[in-house]
């Protein structure tokens, strides 16, 4: 009846996961009661859960990412604490079994359920606005993508309370992850959760490539698109071509585990190196899926806060596309030690170093954008500068690792761990925090507190360097990654420093929450009236903050590279706005519960597969098919926003803009 699921699945004997789960359940229950008490469920259901509005979906992605960041960080600091304590005679407070689950969960969550939803959230929120259109190409599918991603996150977190998580490392390498060596449900949780969220990611990629290539405001030719849209395009192209390979690798491992196939087993002719190749054919491009949009955010920040057009726009576009393509040709550098031979290793080593060239082009472009500009030192610029300092060093250690003989010495060591944390925190996380500060007023109509924002930046910046730079030394001295116990007492001071660094990052995360609450409390003093708080250059700053559901009353006509900047300067010079256009009713997609229902059945089905409850899995599949048929049968897909509403809204915006224009012309 319940497959492998018994009461023994609840970890009564392990206080840490048990107490954590109870606290999480209490928090969720408390939130539910609070929402019910304020009667906010209808609002949440209509405005967020079933919304097809790309802005709302973007916000949901980012909320999911921030919640999962707390979980992933908790895992991280537990590991740091264990390594700082378990030295010499001491064994620390985590058993090896538990420790292995924690580092697996940390990597899985941080990549799949923090970095990915954060990046996709920004693409959702920003891309249609920057393109000057009203939504993505497939709004309902967008909602489905989000909920599938959330379903994956749910299953990963469920493993805390029911059963266990994988102990294999975040990529579940076989043969360790085969049922012979990992008989429990941990690897199954991992595989099923990633398959479900992977489907969502492929749908996202289809959606955004179509959106960027086929739905742009009139006049916005390719070389007039903002750089963030270019990087989003490159990122989604990589997703489209890389995620199916992940699906295959994970599906083959599932077949091995569930049906006794022999893809990667030690016996039957299986070949575990096939898995390494497949997983890294996805895994290396994945890095660029994350970092290219991050580069896009830095480009927007650099141009806006320097008050100058981006230096070398075309070279930026070419560099982005070069990275997009080369990112497929380097996967083997993750296992130079496989024994493919000197020639193959040399090819992949050189290809890996070549990526440094377009990246270097980008760094110089940002520097030259700032050079000669009137740089305003708002929070996003702090992250931009912090990023350039940190990322260049991370990139250089990457070039070191790309030299096969060096890699043979330091592979799987803390040197590697330090390298990829340096590029992911210094590259991606700093960009996400910059973007969070930069676009927050557009989403909610008020800015975040600058003072606390700067404090958060310093926590991340100082905390990161303390937490990871010592690892370079430890790695060179021979410390391998993922150690539950440290044999060499002379490493203790370095590990203690790293724990302090992690604690400072933790303080930064706490301060982020404080900043949010404080900014909400004082929002009346920090309203963004004009919709253009940073003196922006791209089309998202043309509309109000927060934008109406349909973004633009009339799609903007684009002339030149910096669509909004050109228009704004003309208005300031002529001291008038463009003539009032002819407003028309607007057709917008209606809300739909399809996404949340599909995700419900996907979760049920996934849970059933993890625990071998086959009847429930069949129920889940039938449910999913039924909702597909039901959705296809629906006749109403759009509703019309009447022209009176559009006109009233647009006139209000024009009135605000005119006032702003007068205040500018009086001050100059």
């Amino acid at each position, binding site marked *: 009846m319940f497959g492998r699921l018994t009461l023994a699945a609840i970890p009564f004997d392990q206080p840490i996961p048990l107490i954590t789960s109870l606290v999480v359940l209490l928090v969720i229950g408390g939130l539910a009661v609070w929402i019910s008490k304020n009667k906010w469920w209808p609002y949440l259901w209509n405005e967020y859960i079933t919304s097809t509005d790309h802005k709302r979906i973007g916000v949901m992605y980012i909320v999911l990412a921030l919640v999962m960041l707390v979980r992933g960080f908790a895992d991280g600091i537990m590991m740091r604490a264990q390594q700082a304590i378990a030295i010499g005679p001491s064994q620390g407070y985590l058993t090896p079994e538990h420790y292995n689950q924690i580092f697996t969960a940390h990597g899985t969550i941080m990549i799949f359920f923090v970095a990915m939803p954060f990046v996709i959230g920004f693409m959702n929120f920003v891309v249609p606005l920057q393109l000057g259109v009203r939504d993505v190409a497939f709004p309902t599918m967008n909602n489905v993508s989000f909920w599938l991603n959330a379903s994956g996150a749910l299953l990963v977190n469920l493993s805390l309370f029911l059963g266990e998580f994988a102990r294999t490392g975040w990529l579940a390498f076989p043969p360790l992850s085969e049922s012979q060596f990992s008989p429990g449900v941990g690897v199954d949780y991992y595989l099923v959760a990633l398959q479900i969220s992977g489907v969502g990611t492929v749908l996202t990629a*289809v959606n955004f490539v*179509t959106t960027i290539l086929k739905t*742009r405001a009139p006049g916005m030719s390719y070389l007039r698109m903002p750089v963030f849209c270019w990087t989003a395009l490159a990122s989604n192209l990589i997703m489209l071509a890389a995620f199916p390979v992940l699906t295959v690798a994970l599906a083959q491992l599932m077949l091995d585990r569930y049906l006794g196939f022999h893809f990667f087993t030690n016996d039957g002719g299986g070949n575990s190196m096939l898995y390494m190749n497949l997983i890294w054919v996805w895994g290396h491009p994945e890095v660029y899926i994350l970092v290219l949009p991050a580069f896009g955010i830095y480009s927007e920040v650099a141009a806006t806060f320097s008050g100058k057009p981006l230096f070398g726009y075309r070279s930026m576009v070419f560099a982005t596309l070069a990275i997009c393509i080369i990112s497929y040709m380097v996967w083997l550098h993750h296992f130079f030690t496989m024994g493919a031979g000197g020639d193959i290793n040399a090819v992949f080593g050189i290809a890996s170093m070549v990526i440094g060239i377009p990246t270097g082009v980008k760094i110089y472009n940002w520097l030259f954008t700032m050079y000669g500009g009137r740089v305003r030192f708002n929070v996003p610029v702090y992250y931009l500068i912090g990023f350039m300092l940190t990322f260049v060093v991370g990139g250089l250690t990457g070039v070191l690792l790309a030299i096969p003989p060096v890699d043979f010495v330091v592979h799987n060591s803390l040197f590697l761990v330090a390298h990829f944390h340096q590029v992911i925190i210094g590259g991606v996380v700093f960009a996400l925090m910059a973007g969070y500060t930069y676009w927050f007023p557009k989403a909610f109509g008020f800015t975040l507190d600058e003072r606390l924002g700067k404090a958060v930046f310093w926590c991340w910046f100082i905390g990161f360097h303390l937490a990871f730079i010592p690892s370079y030394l430890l790695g060179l001295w021979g410390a391998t990654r993922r150690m539950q116990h440290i044999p060499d007492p002379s490493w203790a001071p370095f590990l203690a420093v790293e724990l302090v660094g992690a604690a400072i990052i933790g303080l930064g995360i706490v301060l982020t929450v404080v900043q949010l609450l404080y900014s909400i409390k004082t929002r009346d003093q920090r309203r963004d009236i004009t919709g253009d708080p940073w003196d922006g250059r791209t089309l998202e700053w043309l509309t109000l903050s927060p934008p109406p559901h349909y973004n633009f009353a009339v799609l903007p006509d684009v002339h030149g590279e910096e669509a909004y900047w050109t228009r704004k300067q003309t208005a300031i010079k002529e001291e008038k706005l463009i003539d009032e256009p002819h407003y028309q009713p607007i057709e917008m997609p209606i809300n739909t519960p399809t996404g949340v229902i599909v995700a419900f059945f996907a979760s049920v089905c996934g849970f059933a597969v993890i625990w071998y409850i086959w009847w429930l899995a069949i129920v889940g599949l039938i449910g999913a098919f039924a909702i597909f048929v039901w959705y296809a049968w629906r006749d109403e897909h759009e509703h019309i926003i009447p022209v009176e509403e559009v006109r009233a809204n647009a006139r209000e915006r024009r009135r605000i803009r005119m006032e702003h224009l007068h205040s500018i012309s009086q001050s100059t």
Partner: protein
Amino acid sequence: MSTISETPAIGLTHGGSEDTGLGHRGPESKSIVVPYGFWLFVLSDMVLFSALFASYATLVHATDGGPATNQLFDRNLVAIETMALLLSSFVCGLAMITAKRKNMAWTQIWLVVTGLFGLVFLSIELFEFGKMIGEGAGPQRSAFLSAFFTLVGCHGAHVTAGLLWLGTMIAQIWAKGFRQDITRRLLCFSVFWHALDIIWVAIFTIVYLIGTLP
């Protein structure tokens, strides 16, 4: 499929968009956007199959002492199977032509025939799988057979999903007629069905023809 009075895509109320295909003149109409998105999905499916082909190529000689390719495959049977699938695709093309002329009876007939040929294909595949498993050459026997069953079975699963989709398309056309959104879906279905043919041609060549070389 593109007619003059297309419903505009999201955001398109800004004058008329002539379908340049490049999106320079504002958002394209749905008759461009929807099939374009579906093509991208098909491309990602091709990537999925290419990973399965790569796995098969890696493992084809890893028979672990079990049967190898030229002891298992029957060219004649696979030839019939292939003809069934290719004919199914051809008939699907006929259905598209009749659907364009809004001829309900013939569209339904051709769609049903498409499905029947698809069923013939699937039955032969299942028969072959059953026979192999009966001879002790199931997917658990060796890495080669795991890769074979996964590659060919994944194509078969796509055909099955296609047949379920075809069923809903037949019902939708029957109940709602040749509405624009329905014919758009039919176009996507035919793209999918032809794409499965292309993949089958690769399977036929790489797995069966090369596998039965003496």
